[in-house]
């Protein structure tokens, strides 16, 4: 497969590297997550440590593909740190669905066995089937479409050490529409002029375009004003949690996790406000 200056199609060497990186990532030992444990104990009625061990070692092959997907996809969903690691090398490349399917079959021939540590401490050897490979790759986002104009822009204007990650994050059907490419380009242009690139602001920018769909920079500024207002209002209301018992209310913000208690809400929304203002500053 030829690679030109603007092409995002990986070369054979890059495909090989990608394949090897995938195999390494899939081989990484995992601990059975609570979510998987719940499915095994509830859906498959495995209660004892022995039943769970037998299930993992000899029953997985009997499951239909969709059942395997429901059960094990949480363990083979790429985490943020894994996405970043792949993004640094492959973030600007395009792996088509056909490529992913081919790779999945090819990797399955390797008969990768991934050790999963069960709650009992036993190790279960899990054969990584093609559907789990496909799941992992698809959650890396690398097979999503990235618009050529976006790639050009990133390569031209974004510092190299952010390019891969931004390339990964910018795979969104929204950018097939010119107005969003314009917003994106304007923001990148402005960040370049201000020399204000950071992973945080780039991530917030991409998330903001997806969620709030600004039509242009002026619209984005106004939408960030409304986001700030919304956060500010909710911070003011954050104390009004309906604990009936004052002792519980007093203690809730201490050692008890509570996503809607005042301290956490204020901290979370203060962060959003800070980022929204930073993005507005880019719009200027």
């Amino acid at each position, binding site marked *: 497969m030829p690679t030109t200056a603007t092409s995002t199609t990986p070369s054979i060497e890059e495909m090989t590297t990608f394949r090897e990186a995938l195999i390494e990532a899939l081989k990484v030992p995992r601990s059975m997550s609570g979510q998987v444990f719940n499915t095994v104990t509830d859906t498959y009625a495995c209660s004892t440590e022995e039943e769970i061990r037998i299930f993992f070692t000899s029953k997985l092959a009997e499951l239909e593909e969709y059942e395997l997907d429901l059960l094990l996809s949480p363990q083979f969903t790429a985490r943020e740190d894994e996405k970043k690691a792949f993004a640094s090398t492959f973030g600007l490349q395009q792996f088509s669905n056909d490529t992913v399917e081919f790779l999945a079959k090819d990797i399955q021939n390797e008969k990768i066995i991934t050790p999963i540590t069960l709650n009992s401490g036993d190790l279960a050897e899990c054969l990584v089937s093609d559907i789990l490979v496909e799941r992992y790759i698809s959650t890396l986002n690398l097979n999503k479409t990235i618009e050529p104009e976006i790639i050009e822009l990133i390569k031209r204007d974004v510092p190299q050490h952010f390019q891969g990650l931004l390339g990964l994050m910018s795979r969104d059907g929204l950018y097939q*529409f010119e107005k969003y490419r314009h917003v994106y380009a304007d923001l990148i242009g402005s960040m370049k002029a201000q020399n204000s690139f950071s992973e945080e602001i780039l991530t917030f920018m991409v998330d903001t375009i997806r969620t*709030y769909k600004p039509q242009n920079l002026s619209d984005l500024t106004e939408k960030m004003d409304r986001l700030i207002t919304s956060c500010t209002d909710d911070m003011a209301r954050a104390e009004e*949690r309906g604990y009936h018992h004052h002792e519980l209310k007093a203690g809730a913000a201490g050692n008890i996790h509570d996503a809607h208690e005042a301290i956490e809400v204020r901290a979370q929304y203060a962060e959003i406000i800070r980022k929204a203002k930073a993005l507005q500053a880019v719009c200027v």
Partner: protein
Amino acid sequence: MNAVHDHLKQKFPDWYDGDRAQGVVDGYNNGAGSSQPADEFVAKSILPASTGASRDFSYIAPELPELNSENCVGCMDCVTNCPDTAILGKVVMPETLEAELAKIEDLEYREHVRAQFSETRKYYTAHQKKHDKDPENNPTEGGLFGIFIDPTKCKGCGECVVVCGDHDALKMVKKTSDNLPNYLSDFGFYRSLPASPLTHINAKDRRDIMLKPAAIKQYSGGAGSCMGCGEASVLRQVFAMTHEKVGDRYGIVASTGCNTVYASTYPYNPYSAPWTNSLFENGPADAMGIRALWDQRGNEDWVIWNIGGDGAMMDIGMNALSRLLASGMNVKVLILDTQVYSNTGGQQSTASYTGQESKMGAHGKAHAGKMEKRKEIAQIAMMHPNTYVAQTIGSQTTHFYKVIERALEYKGPAVINVFTTCQPEHGVADDMSATQARNAVKSRAFPLLIFDPDGGPLLSDRLSLEGNPSPKRDWVIEKDAAGNETPYDFLSWARTEGRFRKHFGKDGEPKDLGILVAKEDRLDNWRLLQQLAGIENEDFVAALKASKA
């Protein structure tokens, strides 16, 4: 507008003024509730059915869930665990979707809607592969799956995101006046689609019941329950399954408690089935009367549910419950066990745990929270003649639906006691209903059990502890890769709940005897159940041997 009519217009009896019902609901939605003319329904203490469907909560949620459809596997956990009927799934055939999308003129919006659907293995690949291989015997092709949020029902608890977990298909985003309209439009599109095809509703996976419009409508949302209420998601599941089994042939008697208050804040009623609110103490007696009348009329196959909290069923109305169970009448009892009087301000009940902080069980110098032990209604109910009994949790879906189905089939009284998280009284986060319930089971605070009188001649034939992890052990032992063992005991769970907070120091270690007594009580209860179920406890046997040696 007209959600009430849409839902139920075919079923309005002659005396029921549907237009008036809609007028009242619209008045309240528009802030003009108090200027409504005197209402015939109120005069008769009647709330029209499913009016909750018209309630607009879009001013409440600070955040709304956002879907990344490509990560979604169609597990339906988010839909099942939502307490507000605010997140719904849909399977649609590709050609149907394309036809509907073609009606959207705005290309950008069309693509946005298209992106809400994905080819999951469960609904697409599993069918398509079989079809491709043998189309004659497998005429059904793959269906696309999408998740949609009703922003008029979502309170922003985030439970859906937690149960989605590592699938990473949902996250909460800040709601503003800019993204709210998109949710409304998306949900409008969802409503415009035909019902999910029955061919794609997986009979093996009971979570798929919630793909059926009739099942969803049994509890329409719009109830005044707290964000993330553990009771509401359980009620949704119970009545979805009830409708699955008997259609509309059921009714509800609700004993006073949270469930009656949030389900009857005038003029909003989330139920489509007829229901009546009785007092704390006489719900079972009320249900017996209705049962007797229906039986007299030849409607023996109709189902009557009596629902109530632990206060109603274990304290104030326990004698009525016992009378009902002794009668052998075919009444199903659902106990929403929050271990506290949630509705009246958090007083302790006999279901409260030892050491639990509550009103009338305050934690201070003289008393370290509740001093008594918890009453076990399941064991008491088991000793009534021919009574089916189960303890379960909504988030352990297979177990939950299994016991509800069996209770409905059982010819006689059935008691289903369900642990339901109460965020304000347990001191846990709004998105923790499913997690805390699961961990209550894991910690032996609330063991799962099924007692089926038809199970066999022995007590141990009838009592099953299936669904509890490590059923032969005292506690669930967790080992890490290095082989270090950590028991997940009652304390492990208690330290995650505000109601036990004062028993623990900043280092998380217990600082008084009260919580240790609670731990022993839970172990005693668990060992008793093991004995009754005929399960030999390996730890107990080992300890016994060691003490004799």
